[in-house]
Every structure is written in structure tokens, then in C-alpha cells.
């Protein structure tokens, strides 16, 4: 029939001729993009895997974008906050000669961004009488004035170079003769008379109390070192040793137009306008220049420019420089950057594993197709391009999706955690999302590189597929080296069978029968494909362990916020300076405080602690000398108030009955010890060795000492001697060596003849005080052992007098009544506790508010953490699912053949279980190895900031991660099997997947 058609058609149609096809009629839908069409069809043919791959790409891109956008947003918020509060200046210096500014301009050239100058007009001395409340001097500074004519002075001026002072009342001076005074002078009267500086009369005199509109007369001079007049002091600085005032000019009258807040940078200074004429006798004025730069890569380069301008001392706006990345900040910031880098690498590795796994499978599934294409004349380049086109198509869908996901996710996360950021940044500004094109480009670039890297090996593989192997009908499987080795051992046709000829040989077959044998054989044959699954599993385990680790590390970092259980806190300090609450009975005194507090309607319960210090001694075996050494080296406080011999001075906290019982209960003490009438103590066995660079805790006690002795202080000590640790850590009566200025022991502790006033059994060495105590960690001593005792027992003991002499403050903790307003109740509490005999100043703390803030911070950390964990989990699940499910679905035809040969469901399942367990075990081993590496990298990053961190393998996380991965593996295998079973046998046997 067909032949007839053929013959019949040859006459009139140029059917089978050699004539070139030329351009006669082109199928419109068949263009040159046959490979693109092929790719699209292949993607459509396996929708699940395509979707999983796209999701993987989107997740990886999203995670990268979110990390980058978050970092940029946070940095922008920090910079904005720093600029708003401190201005955009990066460095500042004082100068006496205006030419210095010209030299600065010359030295910085194009780099100079903005420049502002301030003039220091001098200081006026207050009369000794006025100085008592208002300080020795009043400095007078001009407002800063920005200079035009710098390279970029027309640029961004959202923030001042250095901000004007904050106006408390009135306004800032606008013309010569006007002045804005520091707010503390409002309502004060500055009198005439001798000043506190020898030989200097008061130069600051007001006409009556100072209010808006008042006049103040100021005679300004220059502050400098008495011995060295060229050594000048800033006019707003606090009083220096041995300084004097000279070059005092005639008094001038100024009109007060406003009152301003004082700040750290300017000190106690009044402000005049920039063009206020000089008023010192010599007419000299010291200038300060503040400037910002562009294009320098480090603070060092700014410093070098200053040096070449002949400036020999300057100060940096360090906070801003750190945020701008120009100054290497504290180790804590380095540490964060390192952690972010480790995470980015982990994300990249996970993404590469996920995506390349998907590609490898997608390509190996089509090995025969590639072979066929090759035999039909597809060149290697065309085949390679096909795979890369597949990557490109997936990327075109996945990457924008990921960007949207990442940026949207970050936006949501920042919106949810706005309160937390406000609390953490201690400013009312919140973090707003900054989507920098650079970040997006970086995320896209990194993802594209990931994608390319993932597709590269499969593309190469596809182009190397042997056409002959692909065409040969037996070419489904290329025997692996392992299989060839197995076959090489065979001698006879029946060598494969056991001696009884009933089953295949080998351990697997003996244990699991034919299914296990088949599974082992499959694993041997498809080692390459199996490797993909093993890598996927390993990466997933490692990824989940990392998520757990990051969670631990972050929680340990936020764990420092501890406000105790009370809602409100009022500290009452001893009235006299000599650390002494002379009132008779400790218990009765506490009752008075509790009584007053509980009278307030907003307070439902109150408790009282008193704290002070007491000298103690314990057995040397109870002290860990190594921990004390670490403390001395790491902490900012120097030596701990305890030495290796067991002598020391404790921070003593006395508790009322109820508080003691609650603490004893939470620590699991015996009934006898819980009784507040029994003399015992709890020793806090933790000392914080955090400093500005690193966090850490040490345990100063070994726990070997069962009792501690409280000692009465020595009867006599010289005025320049005190009880404490010397610079070498030895506790005793110490003094300052006049020559070396070091603290040295004058009389060793054991020669002081201090008598023991009480032997106190140690009920517990506690590593933390838990939730039962109302007080928080900042109620405790930082550089001394903390000893907690029941006040009742102490009052009844022989130590009563000694202890009372050491008490310096009491603290009232109040719990709010339901519905009571925290701020109002705190005001009422403060009022009720004022004016109690023997107590002086009060300090109030709204712990509810602090807790609210700390909760907001915790929420913030958790939101970001759980986002990371969730995405990590999603990547892991996608990874495992992809490799396991696709791997099984690829074998539809094989499974159908087994089934048609009579293999039943149970046997089938057993075969799959054996295969999957093999993969799972190998995945776990690889995962643990990988997780150890990541953990070590994180540990390295963290130990830059946590000095006492110990390297530990988080086996709990490993177990959990493995359980999750195995569950996903089981679910994936189940899904794949259901799908392969759903196909009928004939269909499956004919199916085109190999």
C-alpha cells in the first residue's frame, strides 16, 4: 500500500529527490529551536521533578536574596541610626591654624565628601558656690557649620555632618550675642566670687535665675595643663587634674535664647552661633573639623590622609566606620560576618547538591535519547547546549520566583519583628527593607553560577553518551566497575547460584532472599545514580544539623537577657558613703520595705533582698585556680575577688523568708535547708568573662568545700590600704605601689588575724539561679563570688554584725496586681519607698517593660531562625525526594519486568527497603562528616567571640536530622512506588523511561 503511494507520487511531486529543500514552504511551528522544544517537552514529561527542581532553585535564590537583603537592610538601619544620632562625620580633629583646613582639602582631594567646622571659644569658670551644682566650668562652643566647596558638598544632606545639639526649650542661637545654655542651668543662678581654680575669679555670672531671655556675662579663657600651657583641654570637658585657666578676656553679655541637652561629644557646653567673635584676651579660638569621605577603603586610609595633612591627633567616629565596613569592628561583629559566610557556603553547597542531583537524574534518565540523537547526527555541542538550555529555562522560572520569595520573605520577617529591632537598636527608628540592586544582582549571579555549576557535569556527560551503547537494545545498563568485578569472579554458568541451586549466592541473598539479592545487584550496577542519592541525603543531614547548631548558638547569644520573675524593681542605696546600713534588725527592716510596697494597690506581692559584701574563706580545694586565671585574663575587671588559697570577698545577697524558700525549692534543697532559720548558703558557681570582644563563662568553684567561713574585717587598716585582690590575684590587704603603680599585697590574708564569725554550710553550688529567684543576673556581683543566704538565719547568727556592716543596698521586687499599669505602679512604689531612714537614693526599674523588649528581641531572633530552618528543611526535603523518588520512577520498566516475572508486592517492598537502607546508612556517614566540618567552621567563627566555647558534636541534632531525612526518604520511596504500581504492566513495559 505504501509502496503504491510512493510510486504513484513520484511523477508529479519532487518527493524523494536530491534537490535541495531550499526555502520552499517551511513548517511554521518547526523552527531551528528543535533542541529547545525537545528540552521543554522533556521538562513537561516529568512534571514533578521539574517542579521540585524549580522550587529548589527558587529556594536557594530566595535564601541568598533574603540573607543579602537582610544584611543590607540591617546595615542601612544601623548606619541611619548612627548618622541620625551622631552625624555622618568619619573623623574629626582640632586645629589652631585655619591653614590646616586647606591642607586637609589638599591631602584628601576628591575623597573629601562633606566638612563641618566648629569653634571652641573658651571656658568661663563658675564661682565656687555655683560650681557645687553646675560644675567648675561652662564651655562655649559654636554651632557646627558646614563648609561649601568640597568635592561632593552638593550631595546627600539628609544627615548633618555633626548634628546640632537637641533643643530642650527655646531655640538655637542665630546671631552673635545669642547663646543656648545646657539644660541643667535652667533656673540656676550663677553668682560672682572666687572660682574653684586657684587665683581665678568667677567669669560666668547671671542676672538672677537663668530663663529664656535672661542675660549671662561670660569672661572666656583657655583651659590648659598648669605645667604645660600648650597642652589644652576641650572647653566642655570635665575637670582635669592640675589644670588652670588663662588668657581670660573681658566679660561679654549674651542673651539666653534656648536650653539644650548635653551630650558626650560636647560635654557641659553652651552654644553660640558660628560667627560669634572670639572673646579670649588673645583672640585665639581653637577649631574642630569634622568630615566625611568617599572612596577610602579603610579608616587607616583616612588616617594616612590626615597624617599627610600634618594633623597629628584626631578621633574617629568609630561606630559609623564599623557599620560602613571601614573599620574592623569588635570580634563579635567579625564573628557575625563569619557565621553569615559559613551559612552562605552551606546554602550554596545545598543548592548545588539539590540542583545537580536533579540534573544528573534528568540526564541519566535520557541517556538513550541522547545516544539516539547523537547517532542521528546531533553534535556534542548541540547536546551540551540542550542540557544548558534546560538549566536556563529552569533558571528563568526559578530565579525570579526566588527573588520574589526572598525579598518578600525578608519584608514580612522585618514587618513582624519591627518591635524587636526597635528594642535591639535602642532607637525609635525601625528597620526598613532596603532592596539594593547590587544584592539582587549578587543573588541572581550566585544562583546562576550554582545552576551552571550544577548543569555542567551532566551536560558533559550527555555529550559523551555513546551512540552505539544507546542504540544497542541491551544498553540499558553500562556495567559498573563493581559489577564487572563480580562477574570476573564467576567461573561457570551456575556460579551465581548457591550450592543447592535454590537461590543466588551471597550474604544479602542468604539473609533477604531474592529481593535482597536484586537490591544488592542494583546497587552494584547503578553506583553512580546511588551516589547522587547518598550525596543528597548527606547534604540534607548536614543542613539540618547546621540549622540546629545555628539555633543553639543564637539562643545562647540571646540567653543573656534575664530579668528575673518580678515585674518592678526599686533599688535603695545606703545613705552614707561607707557601705553601711546601720539599722538594727535586718529582718525587721525588710518587713518595713515589704509593708510599704504591699500597701500600693497595683502591687500584689513584694519581696526584699539586701546586698553587700563580706570577707570569706573556704578550703583551697574548693577553688578552681585555672578558672580564676581565665577570669583575670579575659574579663575586663582584672582579678576575681577570690584567690587560690580560698580567701576572698563575696557579693552577699540576703533573702527574705519566702524568696529563700522558693530558691531552695527550685534548687531541690533538703527541707532543713529550705528553712530560712537554718544557717546555710547557695553559692553561684558562674563568673562571666565576657568582654568587649568575646563572651564566656567560667566556674570558679570545684564544689569540694562543704562550708565557707565568714570573716570579720581586720580592726585596723591604713587609709591607703584596702581588702581585695592584688594584681597577681592574691587576696589580702593591698595597696598601690608608688613606683610601679601596681596593686600589691601589704599584709597577706592569713596574717591579718581575721576571726571567723560564722561557719556556713554550702547547700548548693548553683550554675544559675533559674526562674525562681526574683532577681536577675545584673543584681549580682560581676567580679566577686556571689553568696546567697536567708536573712533570718544570718540575723540570728554570730555573723549578724559583720554582715550588716557590709550591706550597701536593698532591693524591693514587686509583682503587679492583675490589670495594674506598670509605669503608674512603679511611680507609686518609688514614692512609697522614699524617705526611709538610712536609705538615700533610689533607682527604679520597669522589669515588665524590659521583659517585653527582650521578648521582642527573642521573637526577632526566632522569626529569622525559623525562616532559616524552614527553608533549610524545604531544601533537604526537596533534595531527598528528588533523588529517591526520581531514581525509583526511572526504574518503572525494570519493576514491571520483575513483576511480570512473578515478583510479589512483599518481595518488591523488601528489595526497595534494602536499597534505601543502604543509601540511608551511607548518607548518614557522609552527613555526619559534613556536619562535623560545618560545625567546626561555625565553632571557629564563634570562638572569635566566645572565649570559653568547647567544640562539641551535637548528637541530638544529628539524630533528629537523620530521623527527618529517613522519614522523607520513606515518604519519597512510598510515593514513587505508588506511582510505578499505578501504571499497568503493559504500559510500564512499553514506557519510555529506561
Amino acid at each position, binding site marked *: 500500500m505504501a509502496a503504491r503511494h510512493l510510486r504513484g507520487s513520484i511523477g508529479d511531486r519532487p518527493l*524523494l529527490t536530491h534537490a535541495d529543500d531550499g526555502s520552499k514552504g517551511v513548517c511554521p511551528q518547526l523552527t531551528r529551536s528543535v533542541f529547545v522544544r525537545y528540552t521543554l517537552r522533556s521538562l513537561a514529561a516529568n512534571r514533578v521533578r521539574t517542579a521540585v527542581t524549580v522550587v529548589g532553585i527558587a529556594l536557594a535564590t530566595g535564601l541568598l536574596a533574603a540573607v543579602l537583603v537582610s544584611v543590607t537592610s540591617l546595615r542601612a538601619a544601623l548606619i541611619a541610626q548612627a548618622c541620625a544620632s551622631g552625624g555622618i562625620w568619619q573623623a574629626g580633629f582640632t586645629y589652631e591654624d585655619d591653614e590646616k583646613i586647606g591642607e586637609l582639602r589638599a591631602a584628601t582631594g576628591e575623597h573629601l565628601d562633606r566638612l563641618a567646622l566648629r569653634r571652641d571659644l573658651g571656658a568661663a569658670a563658675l564661682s565656687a558656690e555655683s560650681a557645687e551644682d553646675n560644675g567648675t566650668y561652662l564651655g562655649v562652643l559654636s554651632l557646627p557649620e558646614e563648609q561649601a566647596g568640597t568635592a561632593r558638598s552638593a550631595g546627600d544632606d539628609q544627615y548633618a555632618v555633626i548634628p546640632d545639639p537637641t533643643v530642650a526649650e527655646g531655640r538655637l542661637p542665630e546671631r552673635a550675642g545669642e547663646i543656648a545654655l545646657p539644660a541643667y542651668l535652667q533656673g540656676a543662678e550663677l553668682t560672682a566670687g572666687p572660682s574653684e581654680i586657684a587665683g581665678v575669679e568667677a567669669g560666668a555670672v547671671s542676672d538672677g535665675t537663668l530663663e529664656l531671655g535672661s542675660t549671662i556675662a561670660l569672661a572666656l579663657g583657655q583651659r590648659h595643663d598648669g605645667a604645660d600651657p600648650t597642652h589644652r583641654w576641650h572647653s566642655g570637658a570635665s575637670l582635669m587634674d592640675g589644670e588652670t585657666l588663662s588668657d581670660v578676656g573681658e566679660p561679654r553679655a549674651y542673651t539666653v535664647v534656648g536650653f539644650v541637652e548635653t551630650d558626650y561629644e560636647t560635654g557641659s557646653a553652651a552654644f553660640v552661633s558660628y560667627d560669634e567673635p572670639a572673646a579670649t584676651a588673645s583672640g585665639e579660638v581653637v577649631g574642630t573639623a569634622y568630615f566625611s569621605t568617599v572612596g577610602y577603603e579603610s579608616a587607616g586610609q583616612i588616617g594616612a590622609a590626615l597624617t599627610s595633612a600634618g594633623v597629628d591627633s584626631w578621633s574617629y567616629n568609630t561606630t559609623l566606620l564599623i557599620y560602613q565596613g571601614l573599620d574592623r569592628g569588635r570580634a563579635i561583629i567579625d564573628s557575625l560576618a563569619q557565621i553569615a559566610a559559613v551559612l552562605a557556603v552551606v546554602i550554596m553547597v545545598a543548592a548545588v547538591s539539590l540542583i545537580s542531583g536533579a540534573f544528573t537524574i534528568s540526564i541519566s534518565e535520557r541517556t538513550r535519547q541522547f545516544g539516539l*540523537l547523537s547517532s542521528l547526527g546531533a553534535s556534542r555541542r548541540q547536546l551540551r547546549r540542550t542540557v544548558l538550555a534546560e538549566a536556563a529555562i529552569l533558571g528563568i522560572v526559578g530565579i525570579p520566583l526566588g527573588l520574589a520569595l526572598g525579598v518578600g520573605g525578608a519584608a514580612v520577617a522585618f514587618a513582624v519583628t519591627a518591635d524587636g529591632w526597635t528594642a535591639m537598636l535602642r532607637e525609635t527608628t525601625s528597620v526598613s527593607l532596603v532592596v539594593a540592586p547590587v544584592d539582587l544582582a549578587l543573588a541572581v549571579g550566585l544562583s546562576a553560577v550554582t545552576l551552571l555549576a550544577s548543569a555542567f557535569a551532566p551536560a558533559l556527560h550527555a555529550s559523551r553518551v555513546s551512540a552505539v551503547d544507546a542504540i544497542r537494545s541491551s544498553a540499558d545498563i553500562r556495567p559498573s566497575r563493581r559489577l564487572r568485578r563480580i562477574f570476573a569472579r564467576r567461573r561457570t554458568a551456575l556460579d551465581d547460584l548457591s550450592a543447592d541451586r535454590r537461590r543466588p549466592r551471597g550474604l544479602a541473598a542468604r539473609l533477604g532472599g531474592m529481593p535482597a539479592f536484586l537490591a544488592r545487584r542494583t546497587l552494584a550496577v547503578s553506583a553512580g545514580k546511588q551516589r547522587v542519592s547518598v550525596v543528597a541525603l548527606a547534604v540534607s543531614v548536614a543542613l539540618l544539623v547546621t540549622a540546629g547548631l545555628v539555633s543553639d548558638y543564637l539562643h545562647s547569644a540571646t540567653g543573656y537577657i534575664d530579668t528575673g520573675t518580678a515585674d518592678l524593681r526599686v533599688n535603695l542605696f545606703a545613705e552614707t558613703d561607707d557601705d553601711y546600713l546601720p539599722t538594727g534588725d535586718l529582718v525587721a527592716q525588710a518587713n518595713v520595705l515589704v509593708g510599704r510596697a504591699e500597701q500600693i494597690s497595683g502591687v500584689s506581692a513584694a519581696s526584699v533582698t539586701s546586698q553587700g559584701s563580706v570577707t570569706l574563706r573556704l578550703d583551697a580545694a574548693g577553688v578552681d585556680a585555672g578558672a580564676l586565671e581565665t577570669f583575670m585574663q579575659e574579663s575586663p575587671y582584672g582579678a576575681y575577688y577570690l584567690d587560690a588559697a580560698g580567701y576572698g570577698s563575696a557579693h552577699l545577697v540576703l533573702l527574705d523568708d519566702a524568696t529563700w524558700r522558693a530558691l531552695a525549692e527550685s534548687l531541690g534543697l533538703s527541707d532543713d535547708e529550705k528553712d530560712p532559720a537554718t544557717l546555710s548558703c547557695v553559692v553561684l558557681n558562674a563568673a562571666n568573662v565576657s568582654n568587649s570582644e568575646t563572651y564566656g563563662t567560667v566556674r570558679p568553684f570545684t564544689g569540694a568545700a562543704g562550708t565557707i567561713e565568714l570573716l570579720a574585717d581586720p580592726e585596723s587598716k591604713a587609709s591607703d590600704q584596702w581588702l581585695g585582690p592584688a594584681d597577681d590575684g592574691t587576696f589580702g590587704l593591698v595597696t598601690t605601689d608608688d613606683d610601679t603603680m601596681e596593686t600589691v599585697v601589704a599584709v597577706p590574708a592569713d596574717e591579718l588575724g581575721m576571726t571567723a564569725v560564722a561557719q556556713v554550710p554550702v547547700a548548693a553550688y548553683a550554675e544559675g539561679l533559674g526562674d525562681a529567684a526574683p532577681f536577675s543576673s545584673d543584681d549580682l556581683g560581676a567580679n566577686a563570688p556571689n553568696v546567697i543566704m536567708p536573712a533570718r538565719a544570718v540575723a540570728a547568727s554570730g555573723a549578724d554584725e559583720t554582715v550588716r556592716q557590709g550591706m550597701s543596698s536593698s532591693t524591693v521586687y514587686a509583682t503587679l496586681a492583675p490589670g495594674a499599669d506598670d509605669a503608674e505602679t512603679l511611680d507609686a512604689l518609688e514614692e512609697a519607698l522614699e524617705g526611709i531612714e538610712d536609705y538615700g537614693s533610689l533607682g527604679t526599674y520597669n522589669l515588665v517593660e524590659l521583659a517585653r523588649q527582650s521578648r521582642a528581641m527573642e521573637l526577632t531572633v526566632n522569626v529569622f531562625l525559623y525562616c532559616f530552618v524552614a527553608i533549610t528543611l524545604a531544601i533537604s526535603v526537596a533534595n531527598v525526594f528528588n533523588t529517591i523518588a526520581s531514581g525509583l520512577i526511572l526504574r518503572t520498566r525494570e519493576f514491571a519486568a520483575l513483576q511480570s516475572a512473578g515478583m510479589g508486592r512483599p518481595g518488591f517492598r523488601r528489595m526497595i527497603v534494602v536499597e534505601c537502607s543502604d543509601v540511608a546508612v551511607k548518607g548518614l556517614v557522609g552527613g555526619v562528616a559534613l556536619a562535623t566540618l560545618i560545625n567546626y567552621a561555625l565553632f571557629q567563627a564563634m570562638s572569635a567571640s566566645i572565649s570559653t566555647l568547647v567544640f562539641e558534636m551535637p548528637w541530638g541534632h544529628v539524630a533528629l536530622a537523620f530521623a527527618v531525612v529517613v522519614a522523607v526518604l520513606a515518604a519519597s520511596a512510598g510515593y514513587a512506588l505508588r506511582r510505578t504500581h499505578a501504571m499497568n504492566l503493559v504500559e510500564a513495559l512499553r514506557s519510555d523511561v529506561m
Partner: protein
Amino acid sequence: MDILQIEHLTKTYGTGDTAVRALDDVSFTVAAGEFVAIIGSSGSGKSTLLHLIGGVDRPTSGTVRLNGEDVFQRSDEQLAVFRRREVGLVYQFYNLVPVLDVVENMCLPVLMDGRAVNERRLTSMLHVLGLEGREHHLPNQLSGGQQQRVAIGRALMNAPAVVLADEPTGNLDSRNSAEIMSLLRTSNKELGQTLIVITHDEDIALTADRVIALEDGRIASDTRVR
């Protein structure tokens, strides 16, 4: 005029103990327009020979010349171009790309070459092959015979000088088998295309101009039938 010159062609698979000499010093020539049947027992090296002529595989030694030009002097890239332009290949199994439809499969070599498809030629070819109305079916929606016709259509679409078929009717019934063979023979006769067919079917072999019998990788006999 000899279009094909095969000289001392040898192909060895594997090395050492397990080495298999699939083709052992085979030499012969084929004239343009000739119809050659290759027969031989299973494993005698027929497919291997066809793959070498088609430029799908490279020999261990020896040469294949098409129109006087040494096929294996070409680089891999040039060899790919050779396959898509100079020869048409038809196999027994697994001939089609599963995700492409009938038309796309047929046009594959043209499209890979980056050339335009002659629509009229395609239409008449579909007609001749009896595939009208099935243009956009995927391979697994076709019967074995139909699949094989698509493969032949693909081999002829480019109007190659040499058509190579490896047991093209191996898994077809006698009626389908006859149709396929007459398609191939017609193109051979009418267009003067050189046709080399491997077959186990004596009837088919007897319709050829010449029958070459292979045994253990060597030519056992070379008989001119007509």
C-alpha cells in the same frame, strides 16, 4: 562507480582476556545505487559493521570511504554532520525520541542541521508512509510498524546517499514487514540511493542485488544475486 569502499575494517571490543573481535579485517566495495543485504548468525558482527559505515562508532583499524572520502578522518563534530547529512539510519528498536511527535521525529536531522523543512516533501512523505492524521502523536501512541515507518521517513527526509537499516523489520509482522521493505526498495530504485540492510529474513535477502554473509566478524561469502 563505487560509492563505498571498505578496507581492512577491524573492530575489537574490550581488552586482554575479554577482548572480542567483532569485525576482523573486512574489505568490500559497494556501487552507487546498489541494494546490499547483510546476513549472518547472531553475534557475527553485522550491527557493528553497520555502525561503522554509518559513522556512529569508530573502528579499531581500517577505513571506510564514502564517495572517496575517508569517513573517520573527520573530527567528532564533522562526523555528527556526516551522520545527519550523508546517511540515513534505521534500527530495529528504539528509533524515536519519546518526547517528540511524529513530525518532529521525522524532521530531526534537518532541524539539527539548522535547515528549513520542506513542507511539501514532508506532506507527501507522511502520505506515502501512511502517517496522515498521526502527525502529532507521540511514539508511544503508535504501533511498532508505524514507529518503524516514522524512522524510515526520518532516514529518507534528508535524501541521503546511503540508507542503512539494521533489521528494520525484525519485530514486525509479515504484512508490515513487506510494506517497509517495499518503501526502502522503491527509494533505492527510483532515486538511485544505496541501500544496505541487515536481515535475518531470507526472502528479504533474496530481493537484494547482492548478499554478504558475515561469520565471526569475517566475510564468509559475497554473492551477487542479480
